[in-house]
């Protein structure tokens, strides 16, 4: 190693040192948002492997090592989750073209949410809607940062958010009225 390693640990080994503490947080973040154990494991592995790739690239470029932290790893995990939903959306694209989008209600909605039911509803929304609502509300990111994660403009993200909230509200209202809901909710 270079003489620098006498001052700072190699970032790859520093990442391994962070592993035990960061793993339950990264896995917890992903499992609570995707809801499937096997998928959460795959995405957790992707997150850490991507982190290794990033720190290795840093090491090769001889630039400053990254600020290694759990928060940074959660950010990497968020991108992996978005990538997953993007792939899922691609696979469902044909279906969604057929299904179309219903018109949006424009009256304000100020019910108090039943959070458990809301999480169930979220799980049956399409991948695009689920992604934007998760980043905006579960993660609590400002719209500009959501747009950045999704690779969309702020304007397009706001429009997507509006459609996602409308879709969420339709499903939620149907559920809370006790009516059997239609369409994709039946697939659960």
């Amino acid at each position, binding site marked *: 190693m270079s003489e620098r390693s006498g001052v700072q640990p190699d970032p*790859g080994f520093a990442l391994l040192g962070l592993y035990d503490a960061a*793993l*339950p947080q990264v896995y*917890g973040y992903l499992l609570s948002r995707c809801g499937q154990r096997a998928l*959460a*494991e795959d995405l957790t592995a*992707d997150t850490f492997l991507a982190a290794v790739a990033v720190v290795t690239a840093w090491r090769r470029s001889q630039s400053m090592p990254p600020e290694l932290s759990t928060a940074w790893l959660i950010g990497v995990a968020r991108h992996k989750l978005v990538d997953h939903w993007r792939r899922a959306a691609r696979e469902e694209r044909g279906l969604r073209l057929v299904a179309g989008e219903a018109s949006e209600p424009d009256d304000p*909605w100020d019910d108090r949410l039943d*959070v458990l039911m809301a999480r169930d509803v979220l799980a049956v929304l399409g991948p695009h809607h689920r992604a934007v609502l998760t980043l905006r509300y579960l993660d*609590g990111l400002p719209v500009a940062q959501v747009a950045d994660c999704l690779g969309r403009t702020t304007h397009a993200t706001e429009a997507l958010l509006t459609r996602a909230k409308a879709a969420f509200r339709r499903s939620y209202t149907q559920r809370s009225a006790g009516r059997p809901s239609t369409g994709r909710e039946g697939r659960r």
Partner: protein
Amino acid sequence: MTDPLDALREPVVLITPDPRFAAALRARLERAVIRGDEMSATQTTAGHVGYASVWLPDIERAETFYRAVLGWSFAPGSIEHGRQIEDVRPRMGMAGGVEHSSLFLAHAVPDVRAAVRRIHAAGGQADEPVQQPYGLISDCVDDQGLRFSVYEGAADVPAQSRPGELVYITVEVPDTARFRAFYGAVFGWTFTPGRINDGWGVNEARPMMGVHRAGDRPTILPMYQVTDIQDAVGRVRRAGGTAVDPAQRPYGLESLCSDDQGSRFYLGQF
């Protein structure tokens, strides 16, 4: 204005994953940090063939035939009717006692347990992985009854094949759509329509691989590299096999052959 969806806010909670998963991932990270060459579980493709075994009825006859035609030499295998073929890449073996001749493939994957989950999800069968000297391996059957295995590790597939080595793999299946769906889900493979009807090239496979619709049960045919296909065809015929006259293809000269037990294979000169 308040937004009812703000109630969904979910701070990061700590969840301890399966300790086996945690230990396996740590081992992969250590390898990745040291070697810097690890692949992603879902984003990078997998499934390179690191080992292939010629399955046919009679191992002794096959030894004589393939030694004469391809110049192979053999070492004892791990089972009585098995042989290892020496000094070829990817590594190969041969096994007797199988009525329906085919080429058995072992695919390298970065994570066997993840691959097993994907195989189950895609409608295939996969045994609990077992540790072998060369790595963790699971024996599997795809959703059309084709046996294969997945093992954790790399595949040693040279960029340039030498004579007698496996250079191309042809898969015949009753239903190519099912094949593409299954192996697409398991290895992330993608496919390009080929020059024959319902024939597809596998974009990510090593050695190169193609699949087409034929027959009523899946069969895999190897293609072996030769330096002079006319000579090689002569050796096939003298050894009791059959060979169609070599034909010029866009990629080289090719001949479809059968050994003296009726097991089909291709020869290719590039």
